[in-house]
């Protein structure tokens, strides 16, 4: 899925990004502690490619995804999207970027309102980003989106609890696609799924990329999946990027000991590797 035209400007350019959370501790005497979740991180994502972001829990990988969408307090640094500096934009100026940048989260159970029908869940971004759209147009668009992610159009009248985990994740993908984004942040979007369902969603994401040229920031802790889907990857440890590069190079000859230790932790599958099952 790599883009031949690597000369073009990166879609997303992050420079020296730092994110600090403030935690208030103490019952009577309040004191503040600062947690440096992300420390001076720089990277770029090229259009139409998939950039992997790997690391353990607490390494700051989700925080980066949140910072791009202004869901985390940015302390310093710059985030340039399509040439435009995003930090410092006021909320109304930022709104168009919420349309262009969408996100899919880990838990398809927690990321949908159980009282809303699938139609209203998938159409929600349309209501915000395309308010001029008529009711029937919106319905047609939802039907089209559901079919695109491999569900039947008449699913729109049903509710989240009537779907399995894999189907729900497809609905989340449809919702993310509804505003026609160029960039999707996939935050551990296949980690909670069964291996068999995971394969379906990974294939779906790849098909959509081939068809629509979407750029992904793929946050995950499963290195095998990242190798499978990503052109390049960043390895994070304790808020810092310790290594980055094309996935082939990163997996073949990791330079940082932390990357090595992550690779060592992948299940070895001694029987399967070397058998013709693989």
């Amino acid at each position: 899925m790599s883009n031949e035209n690597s000369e073009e400007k990166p879609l997303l350019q992050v420079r020296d990004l730092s994110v600090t959370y403030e935690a208030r501790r103490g019952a009577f005497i309040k004191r503040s502690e600062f947690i440096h979740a992300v420390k001076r991180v720089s990277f770029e994502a090229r259009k139409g490619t998939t950039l992997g972001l790997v690391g353990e829990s607490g390494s700051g990988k989700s925080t980066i995804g949140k910072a791009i969408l202004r869901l985390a307090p940015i302390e310093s640094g710059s985030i340039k999207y399509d040439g435009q500096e995003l930090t410092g934009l006021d909320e109304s100026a930022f709104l168009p970027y919420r349309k262009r940048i969408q996100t899919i989260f880990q838990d398809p159970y927690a990321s949908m309102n159980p009282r809303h029908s699938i139609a209203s869940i998938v159409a929600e971004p349309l209501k915000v980003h395309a308010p001029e759209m008529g009711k029937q147009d919106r319905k047609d668009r939802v039907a089209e989106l559901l079919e695109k992610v491999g569900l039947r159009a008449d699913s729109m009248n049903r509710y989240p609890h009537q779907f399995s985990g894999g189907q729900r994740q497809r609905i989340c993908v449809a919702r993310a696609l509804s505003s026609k984004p160029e960039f999707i942040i996939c935050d551990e979007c296949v980690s909670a799924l069964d291996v068999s369902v995971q394969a379906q969603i990974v294939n779906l994401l790849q098909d959509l990329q081939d068809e629509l040229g979407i750029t992904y920031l793929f946050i995950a802790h499963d290195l095998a999946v990242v190798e499978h889907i990503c052109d390049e990857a960043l390895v994070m440890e304790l808020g810092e990027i310790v290594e980055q590069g094309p996935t082939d190079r990163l997996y073949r000859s990791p330079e940082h000991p932390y990357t090595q230790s992550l690779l060592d932790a992948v299940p070895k599958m001694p029987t399967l590797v070397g058998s013709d099952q693989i």
Partner: protein
Amino acid sequence: MLLDVQDLTVSFHSRDGVNEAVRGISFGLEKGKTLAIVGESGSGKSVTSMALTKLLPPKPMCQVSGVARLGGKSLLDLPEKEMRSVRGKGIAYIFQEPSTSLNPYYTVGSQIAEALKYHRDDVSDIGKEVVRLLDQVGIRDPENRAKDYPHQMSGGMKQRVMIAIALACQPSILVADEPTTALDVTIEAQIINLLRDLRQRLDMSIILITHNFGIVDGFADDIAVMFRGEIVEAGPAEKVLVDPEHPYAQALIKCIPKMGAKRERLPVVDYSKLEAG
């Protein structure tokens, strides 16, 4: 045979009708061996393990039939009072999400002590035994960590505490139900290594329930693959992994993303074909 299950059937009855979660499955487990039950969500693997110690809803919501023998004791018609001694001592469980299995209001030490109080009359110094158990599951500085509350520990450490609670009862079978699914790869590797090490040291039998063939390989002696409530493939691990006969088992192995594989499409399980066949 330590555990012998014959023709186990579990069905749930509700207003919407009958749902047969487990349909007449049979399997056995020898002492000191590890059996992996592999299947996806809804295949009935967890229900199978919970039926063994009556952790399912009572009749008439849930009907269990068949035979399950643990060391000669017939489990399925055991009265509740005797079942309490099987739970913990006979079969102990660790579940997927350690943070929901632990009580946030009590220190981890006191939660391990609770298991000791109920199941171990032979322990005189409970505090000392708690520290020994925490040490056994690889928690550093166990004297002080025993005073920690669950929220002060990481996911991997909480899962170690869950294993310590299970081991406190000295079970003959440890059921590990998706023990690493909620954990990072590095922590997953640690927990699997810990289970491997404990199995050897304590000569314990393990039933590993998972959807991921990746962690089964190199860990299980035998594998049973479940699909829609039935065991579709069973046998020694090498046989099932290298030369699976059932198309579902084949598909499930093929769809694991492998390291070193290039960016091709992942093979998926073709359910329509399976249902037709």
